[in-house]
């Protein structure tokens, strides 16, 4: 069993990413979309939280949302994978269910 989690809030504005990391069971996938993509950037006050969670969770970020915000992929935390919408759909299928941290 595994869950695909989506996070669509900036971690500097809301606690969705933090709650997701706290309540996501091992083996899950976390996809950052919309303003959630800011949580994927390295060198921020939230980067360590994401890096530390990588031992249990796989992190993805939605490329079109990154590009829209002018965030270069080089600024992402090591290990975060970039997917497009078709990759998003694949993640939905590969995991057993979806939890959206709205």
């Amino acid at each position: 069993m595994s869950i695909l989690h989506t996070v669509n809030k900036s971690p500097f504005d809301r606690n969705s990413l933090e709650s997701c990391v706290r309540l996501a069971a091992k083996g899950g996938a976390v996809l950052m979309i919309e303003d959630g993509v800011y949580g994927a950037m390295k060198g921020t006050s939230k980067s360590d939280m994401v890096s530390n969670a990588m031992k249990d969770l796989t992190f993805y970020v939605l490329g079109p949302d990154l590009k829209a915000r002018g965030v270069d992929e080089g600024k992402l935390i090591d290990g975060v994978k970039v997917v497009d919408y078709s990759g998003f759909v694949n993640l939905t299928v590969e995991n057993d269910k979806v939890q959206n941290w709205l």
Partner: protein
Amino acid sequence: MSETKKLMYVNRKAPYGTIYAWESLEVVLIGAAFEQDVSVAFVDDGVYQLCKDQDTTGLGIKNFSATYKALGDYDVNKLYIEKESLEARGLTLDDLMPLVYEDEDDDWAEKDSIKVVSSQEMAELFEQSDVLFNF
């Protein structure tokens, strides 16, 4: 629809500031008619939904907190509250409305619907569900 699925409603928003808490409670009430295995989770600001002594007369809007007390009559009696969310907000069970149901398998004994669980237990409950309705 003979198949029974485990439905989990996840509440993470406080009441009144936005409509999500109220409209998600409407989903739970309607969903009760589908005779599925229903659980409701309260995490983050969602725990504020269950605070007692809510009084909206000064706002002139509907106070829907009493509706939670009816959940037991709809056979919605598995309400899980995350302990960490409760404690982070300086709340204890005493700050929440007592919510009960009558257990038909136990001579209609009145039982607590609310169960406080750890983050780990909550994560397991999410894993065990078939469908998560997120609000």
